[in-house]
């Protein structure tokens, strides 16, 4: 499936800022869409659309930080670059703690914003590739039988077949058969690869 082209979304209630950012991004050949409010952006937001977000912190109605919270609730991974004319450290720290990609204070140089946007677009590409990878692993995990899943969990904890057999109360030969099925269904070439797959889908601490 071919990826959609990346778009930079600009959300700012200031007409002049929206216009200047649109012109700047256009001059750099970067597709861009602008919105005057968080609500306007969220009403049409499609998480499948690759890109990044340039978001004003202070806006009437829903603020930029509130919109970031809403995107987090929706499980969105789009990188967010905050821009603000009145930034302070607690605000920047809060934005970064909630996953902001960057936080820029106005006035900023055009090139400074373009650099951050380019980096955010690279990050978005990486995020989406990682998500596709973990989705594929989860799909394979879903094909395992409950017993195969038990065997997988034990072998990726580093237990030898003999120990797994003891833990599950089955013969070592049975474990070997389940283990072969696990490797086949997970499309893993080695135990190390299997462990890496499980680490990729493990919940982050």
């Amino acid at each position: 499936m071919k990826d959609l082209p990346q778009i930079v979304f600009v959300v700012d209630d200031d007409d002049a800022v929206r216009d200047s950012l649109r012109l700047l991004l256009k001059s750099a050949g970067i597709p861009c869409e602008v919105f005057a409010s968080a609500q306007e952006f969220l009403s049409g937001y499609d998480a499948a659309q690759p890109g990044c977000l340039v978001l004003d912190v202070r806006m009437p109605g829903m603020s930029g930080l509130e919109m970031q919270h809403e995107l987090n609730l929706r499980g969105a991974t789009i990188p967010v670059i905050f821009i603000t004319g009145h930034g302070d450290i607690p605000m920047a720290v809060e934005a970064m703690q909630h996953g902001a990609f960057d936080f820029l204070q106005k006035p900023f140089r055009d090139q400074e914003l373009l650099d951050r946007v380019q980096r955010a677009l690279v990050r978005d590409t990486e995020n989406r590739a990682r998500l596709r990878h973990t989705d594929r692993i989860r799909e394979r995990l879903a094909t395992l039988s409950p017993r195969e899943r038990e065997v997988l969990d034990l072998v990726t904890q580093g237990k030898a077949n003999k120990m797994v057999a003891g833990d599950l109360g089955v013969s070592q030969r049975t474990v070997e058969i389940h283990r072969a099925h696990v490797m086949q269904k997970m499309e893993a070439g080695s135990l190390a690869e299997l462990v890496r797959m499980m680490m990729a889908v493990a919940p982050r601490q």
Partner: protein
Amino acid sequence: MVGSDYNADGATKDGGAQSTRTIIVAGQSSQRTREVLRTLRDFTNVIWPTSLEATLEETGSADAACLVIADDLREEPVDEFLQEARGLHRNLPIFVITDPDDVAEAVSAMRLGATAVIEIPPSYAALREEVARAVQ
């Protein structure tokens, strides 16, 4: 306590907490580092190692509760030290103290793995709260 030349043992008062885990303070000998140490005087096991090597050794220890980067370091830029410390201990709370209003520095520290950035002055209370949470 390897390489420690400061230990702020004291009675627990408001915001303080008794813990066997170590609160590590990093920073050159300066007024700001001393202010941070004073702010944390009610916590037990606060250490201020005398060398970067000792600081990193304590940071990588299982006993570490948190790391407070109070000020510039003599031997290494703060950004590099922060990355190194984060590399040693993925989940350790790391607090970076910064001058008020230096948003760019705060953002940079957060990107490099700080748990929070606290401006001093005025947020002494915020530092005590963060450290109290970390030692629990």
